[in-house]
């Protein structure tokens, strides 16, 4: 490096400009081209319906109960599924936070469903939970019930599918948040007389809570955009007519691109709303270091 360029660099640094930030340009271009532009394009399309004013597509969406109710239907599936995934991940990850024999194997088993894909999961669910599937055959054999329990092509089918695909994400995230908490904190709490319940609720949980909020947001977004399983193992014209189906129908059944874009924008807005509420609550929590001191 020659002296003049070094001097330029120093002068820039004094004004808070770091030329190395230019390396971010490709990533920024990527995000703008593949996310920001389509998003803005979608908004623009949603504001140019074939008939009516600029907001006609939105007015139609919200005035038609068949469209409007997809919001609550989707929330009714996505919120409980995301909550269940996070809450189920906590005790399992908590038990697995230490080192033990077979940890890698167990983690692999728990995470494998990520690789399956929705369609394969749906097929498995239909075979396993369907009216003549293993689950119902066992129930009938054990005389728990004399009629097959309906767990597919309804709300529960989609719910189970979201848990199978969403749990591994939640589990991996919670496990990594947990392993970031200094284990000596719990040991300190133990020497101060705290049993495991107190240690968990007073030390671990408060330090883990911000991570749980983030995990919830991610699994919620995954669940909220549910589409294949809502059709394959759900009841796509009734109890699991989620918002993505409404958008799909508008676009490819009615060829109403403005309506489809409006549905997609509404979908994004609802997600944003839920995430801001959760992150707002998260900001009330302690979010600093999870180490116990120096060293």
């Amino acid at each position, binding site marked *: 490096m020659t002296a003049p360029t070094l001097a330029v660099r120093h002068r820039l640094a004094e004004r808070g400009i770091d030329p190395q930030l230019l390396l971010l340009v490709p990533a920024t271009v990527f995000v703008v081209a593949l996310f920001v532009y389509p998003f803005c394009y979608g908004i623009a399309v949603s504001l140019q319906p074939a008939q009516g004013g600029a907001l006609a597509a939105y007015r139609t969406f919200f005035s038609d109960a068949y469209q409007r109710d997809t919001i609550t239907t989707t929330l009714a599936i996505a919120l409980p599924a995301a909550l269940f995934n996070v809450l189920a991940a906590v005790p399992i990850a908590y038990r697995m936070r230490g080192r033990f024999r077979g940890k890698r194997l167990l983690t692999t088993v728990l995470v494998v469903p990520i690789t399956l894909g929705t369609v394969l999961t749906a097929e498995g669910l239909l075979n396993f939970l369907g009216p003549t599937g293993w689950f119902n055959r066992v129930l009938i054999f054990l005389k728990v019930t004399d009629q097959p329990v309906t767990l597919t092509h309804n709300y529960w089918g989609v719910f189970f599918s979201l848990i199978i695909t969403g749990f591994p994400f939640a589990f991996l995230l919670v496990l990594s948040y947990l392993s970031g908490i200094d284990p000596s*904190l719990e040991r300190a709490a*133990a020497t101060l007389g705290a049993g495991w319940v107190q240690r968990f609720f007073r030390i671990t949980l408060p330090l883990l809570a911000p991570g749980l909020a983030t995990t919830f947001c991610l699994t919620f977004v995954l669940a909220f955009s549910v589409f294949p399983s809502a059709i394959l193992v759900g009841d796509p014209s009734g109890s699991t007519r989620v918002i993505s189906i409404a958008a799909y129908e508008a676009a490819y059944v009615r060829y109403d691109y403005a309506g489809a874009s409006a549905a997609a924008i509404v979908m994004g807005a609802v997600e944003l709303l839920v995430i801001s509420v959760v992150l707002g609550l998260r900001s009330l929590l302690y979010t600093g270091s999870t180490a*116990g*001191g120096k060293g």
Partner: protein
Amino acid sequence: MTTFETLRLDGVTRRFAGADALAGLDLEIRRGEFIALLGPSGCGKSTALNCLAGLLPLSDGSIWRDGTRLDTLPPERRGFGMVFQNYALFPHMSVRKNVSFGLKMRGVARAEIRRRTDEAIRLVHLEEHAAKLPGQLSGGQQQRVAIARAVVVEPSLVLMDEPLSNLDAKLRLEMRTEIRRLHQNLGLTTVYVTHDQEEALSMADRLVVLRAGRVQQIGTPEEVHNRPANRHVADFLGFRNLLPGIAGGGSVKINNWQVSGTPVGAVAEGDPVVAAIRPEDVVLGGGSGIEVTVEVVEYHGREIAAEARTVDGLPLHLRTSERLAPGDKVAVAFPPERLLVFPA
């Protein structure tokens, strides 16, 4: 709080993957005593402390508080206080909440918690910082919170795991006095783990010197300092000169010269031995006829520390108030009562 007359460790052993981290530690701790577990890293001193705290299960042996067996109890039911090396302060709780945590867990009444927490915070001079989070405190302040948190519950035993090792030299000296003062004022029985011989000698009533999981010596600071039980203890306690030699009736033959020393342990004529002497005990001058050449000189204020070499190439550390310079040739002598002769 449960108090006791003696706490007894009976053959306490802990193995990791088949290797003994701590082998058969026998120790009786009397009420009010300050015990230091001293040894190099990996000697088993922290293992011993964790076994005592209940954070590590024993592989063998038992721990007794008077007539009660302790080693089968979980840490939360032993009633000990512990100060961790990294302090392990709860980062999401204020200083006050950290200190009162133990009292809350013990179900102490609210007014009582308030009073005792205030008192403990005052004891470690953190009144102005009571509402702060640990992350807003300096290392020394965090350390004091950790001590207050451990002593506020008036534990029957306080365990300290190298609590000063993360502090700078000046603060370390201050906190050393502070801990000793707390010990005297509160009469707390303390087990203190350290690798710093000076810290152990200056603070403890009794020292337990460990090496490779085994006890080498148990004694008062004076006993351990003046009469190390073996060459390893001597090496660890500042006998920087460990000279190999051969024992001869009442004296040692080191290379070509004969010196007289004090045998420690079974030393028979003709045995290979190690003659140990501290740098500060080496006397300059004298008619012993051992001549050394000064090689390196370190300035230590009133004294200098020098590394010298004998004619036959043996390195020798010495401390003196005389001004030496590299290249100087001086005669040295070893006072026989200060030259300890150990079996090699």
